């Protein structure tokens, strides 16, 4: 095995094996489970970053394992430029979620299971991104869902957790089934499961293009929580323990985007995909508005940020729908930046909840004087999500908007821009109520240092990502030749 192959497989296997180790020797390791999980995620991240020079040289060799050769099924993984932004997001988000969990989740008898499932959840996302064949893709896609459902079911924050987990599982699984149907059609057409074979088969069978694309888009839209398929998201985000919420909002939602980029947008040409441009843009705008409006009237602070995710996913879908290089680039960058900012906002909310023990926006007031560091971090997060320049999300937002103006749907582009005023409105309402409006004197509990560390680190990352956008942009720009036949 070459060093590159070792690095690629290790990114995934380190997390899977560590999770299995935690399950197997849980009773022995429960007190150190969190450190084991942290080390595993760090090693995985290290392996991924070590592969970057190879990727920059243009080398992207898949690693294959013959599974069912008679049926044309080969398990294969690969890192390419389309994988890069999503894997980067997942690895970093996992790391921050685990650091947060140090103080955010109590160590008890089941800790090793918690960290084990957390790693499996992360491995599910990494595996989905790394997969180079539909068989493996679907296995990890389901692993991601099962692991996250178990986490919500067992470590959910209220008695509703079983219902919420069920709801989450059923609805997102419906999406998975739609994706599965598309896979089955593709598989029967191509006779193989490798991504490279799928594109050729799709082009050979143009009559199925629309049907396959619709299944894919619906399936992945459910994962992205696009309105009206978003109904699983607010409850799940509110119910899940905070580290899981961070992973759900910051990383898992982007899996839908990855799916759209990897399948319909990689398999089809610009002309073939253009029939979906308008629906994607419309649904993007609707999601943006609806999510923002709901965030404006919601009173649970965790759910406000959850609705904000619905809104932000709208931006991403809109960007993809523009089918312009700027729009798609913006959407991909938005995935990364949104992950950073959303993780930051959830960390802040988690900090607040731990400190004051309240969820209701109306019962928390005037935290500014008591928690200046938290205020700083939250303000950075609020400004970033409002699309203020020199902070992360601005760089992707203007690209998305610009993509919108390059289409023939000028009105939609204008509405999309107008929608960002609602983003400002809901985040101002939240920030104002929590920090700047004086009010009731709530007792402040001690908050674990790990929560503070992860929050501050994310705030700094938000600034750095905004001030130095070029490296990331250059990396992400490499994905363009892989999408829509590279015919930009």
């Amino acid at each position: 095995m070459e060093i590159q192959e070792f690095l690629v497989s290790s990114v995934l296997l380190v997390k899977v094996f560590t999770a299995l180790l935690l399950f197997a020797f849980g009773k022995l390791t429960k007190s150190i489970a969190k450190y084991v999980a942290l080390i595993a995620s760090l090693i995985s991240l290290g392996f991924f970053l070590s592969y970057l020079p190879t990727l920059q040289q243009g080398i992207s060799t898949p690693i294959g394992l013959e599974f069912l050769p008679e049926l044309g099924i080969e398990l294969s993984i690969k890192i390419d430029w389309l994988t890069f932004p999503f894997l980067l997001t997942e690895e970093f988000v996992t790391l921050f979620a685990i650091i947060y969990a140090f103080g955010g989740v109590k160590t008890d008898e089941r800790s090793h299971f918690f960290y084990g499932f957390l790693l499996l959840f992360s491995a599910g996302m990494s595996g989905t991104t790394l997969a180079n064949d539909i068989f493996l893709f679907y296995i990890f896609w389901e692993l991601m869902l099962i692991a996250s459902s178990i986490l919500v079911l067992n470590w959910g924050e209220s008695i509703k957790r079983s219902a919420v987990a069920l709801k989450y599982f059923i609805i997102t699984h419906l999406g998975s089934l739609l994706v599965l149907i598309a896979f089955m059609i593709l598989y029967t057409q191509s006779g193989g499961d490798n991504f490279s074979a799928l594109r050729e088969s799709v082009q050979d069978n143009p009559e199925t293009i629309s049907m396959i694309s619709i299944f894919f888009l619906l399936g992945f839209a459910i994962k992205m929580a696009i309105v009206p398929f978003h109904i699983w998201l607010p409850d799940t985000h509110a119910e899940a323990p905070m580290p899981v919420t961070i992973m759900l909002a910051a990383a898992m939602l982007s899996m839908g985007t990855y799916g759209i980029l990897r399948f319909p947008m990689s398999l089809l040409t610009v002309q073939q995909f253009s029939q979906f441009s308008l629906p994607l843009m419309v649904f993007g705008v609707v999601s943006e508005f609806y999510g923002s409006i709901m965030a404006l009237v919601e009173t649970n602070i965790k759910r406000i940020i959850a609705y904000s995710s619905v809104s932000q996913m709208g931006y991403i879908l809109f960007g993809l729908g523009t089918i312009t290089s700027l729009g798609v680039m913006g959407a991909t960058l938005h995935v990364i930046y949104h992950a950073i900012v959303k993780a930051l906002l959830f960390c802040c909310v988690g900090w607040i909840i731990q400190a004051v023990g309240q969820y209701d926006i109306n019962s928390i007031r005037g935290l500014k004087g008591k928690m200046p560091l938290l205020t700083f971090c939250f303000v950075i997060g609020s400004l970033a999500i409002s699309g203020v320049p020199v902070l992360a999300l601005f760089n992707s937002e203007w690209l998305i908007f610009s993509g919108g103006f390059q289409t023939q749907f000028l009105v939609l582009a204008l509405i999309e821009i107008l929608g960002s005023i609602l983003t400002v409105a809901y985040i101002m309402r939240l920030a104002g109520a929590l920090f700047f409006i004086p009010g009731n004197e709530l007792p402040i509990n001690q908050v674990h240092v790990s929560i503070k560390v992860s929050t501050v680190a994310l705030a700094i990352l938000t600034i750095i990502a905004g001030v130095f956008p070029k490296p990331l942009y250059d990396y992400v720009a490499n994905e363009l030749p892989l999408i829509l036949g590279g015919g930009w």
Partner: protein
Amino acid sequence: MTAFFPFLTVFLIPMVFGVGLLVIPMSALRKSSIQIVKSSPILAAIGAFTVFLVEDINSICTEWLAAAETMCVGFEKSAILIVLFLTVGFYSTLIIYPEYFTRSSTKLLGFMFISFAAANVAILTNHFLMRYIALELVGLSLVGISLLHTISNGIPWRNAGLMFLNFKIGDLGLLSSILFMHSKTLSFSINENLTQAIVFPSSARSVIIFCLLVSIWVKLAIWPLNIWLNTSSSLFPGIRSWFTHLLLPVLGVYLLYRSTVLIQSNNAYAITVFLFINLALLINEIQYFFSSSQGRISSELHLFSFSCLVLLATRVDQHTFWAYMVLWVMVSIIVELCKPRNDKPQRKNHEITKFLYLSSQFLFLGFLMLVIWKISQLHIIGPFAYVIVWIAWWQNVFRFIQIPNAEKDQGETGFLDKAKLKLFLGASICSVFCLLVLIFTAESLTSYFKHRPVFLFPREFIFPEIIFFIISFWAGFLISILIKSFYGIKRNEINQFQKRLNTFLPQHLHNKTIKPGTFSKDPLDFTNRLSNSIISIFQFIYNQFERSGIEKMIYAINRVFKYLFERIERFTSADLWVRILHSVTGSSKSVQKAHTGLLRVNLLWMAIFILILIILVISFNFQSYLLFV
């Protein structure tokens, strides 16, 4: 010559100082270091001035946002002149209001420096996106200051929030126009975009102009995008003066200057803007109708001058507008320099200073009106629109004469004692002279920088017209004062004045045997009733649409949102799923109780069903599998 020195002085140093003041704790800063920071605009002025000494100067460029081409800060001499003016204004603010920028308010000073540095870049750059970013930073600085002020003085957070929203609307307007132009030209160069935009289809141009005007409207605080101006009224005087009377208007007018060609590319656009600015002017008058405090009236006069500039932008060519802009910037700086301090103990002759300060603003407005009068005659709607400007001006004069009595004891004799009147007339002649000098300077500067002579008075003017206008202007002023003095109006609110007239006049008429309840044919009474009715209409409009309009709208939207939230979101919330789960488990338990083993059988059937499905799928494609194998 390298551009680094001016770039260092007008942008880098102020920005570093600004960020430094925000980041470094107050306790770590010495008094002397604050003094050094406060003196740095002198360096900026030197840096800007050096640009005039060289023939050719290169730009400072960066590839910050990879997709947005190379961003450059150039040093075009006409733009650097505006930067120089801004520097003077900025430094003057720091000097005039030293007590607000001390060691205890380093954060405020930090935001001021950031706004200054960002504004310089906004003016100097030829890159649209860079200008957008710089303008947004300027707005954010004011929001930041508002927030700090909110914190320290307990003024509601709502102010900062509204301000942020208001600026965001303007910024998004600008961003939309930029991106729309970029989609057509594939360039972010301001010159290139505006030049090419002239030949865009009419619909595209309309969108671009509308979006640009949204941004200009916000910066100039023109109705209905003037929320930030009202919320900023609670800021410290020095900061308010810098942001609301100098910085943001300068940026707005500069943006207007750049857009002039586009606005005038079609007569319909110009007329629309012309009409809309009149509407805004009228609404502004309604908003400020009941105000007679000096600060409010001063703000209103500024708004009036912005409106006049927008009107000019619809009619005069770009070069001439540049001259008006330069003149306006110079006058604004001088007016701010001469502004009497209300927040300090009053000096001797404070009223006279205040009077002269306001009258000089009126004089400048008079000049602008003179020009508008002439150019408005070039179009059929011009004279009608001019009537509104004229009414607005008189409305201001009327409120202006209330000030001395509004803020003084009733026993004062006002301005009518001989010494004061002499001083007033002397100062008036001086201010006319000063204005003429400024006009001449603006014309010379334009000729120098734009290589083309301009004439700020419209060429159609004839000498007697000017003389007549000046005489009628001052005569009107003096007559107003005389009327005030004669009737002894000593209240500070115009509605109170109206009430007094209402009670005063019928009594007189009653004494002259007019029975109560009968119709009075007295013309004065009629006009009084008319004005009362107009005031009532204004009051109604103000109460219904201005004062509580936004609240009502928000309330209505809130109701809709809440309805949506309760009906749709709650319906799909976890509660429903809890009920479903209980119902499923409950029914399954009861079924199992009734028929033991049924669930197992069901699962078996389900497994069989899945197996059949798999077999079907494989059998349908069996041929292809065989071929593949």
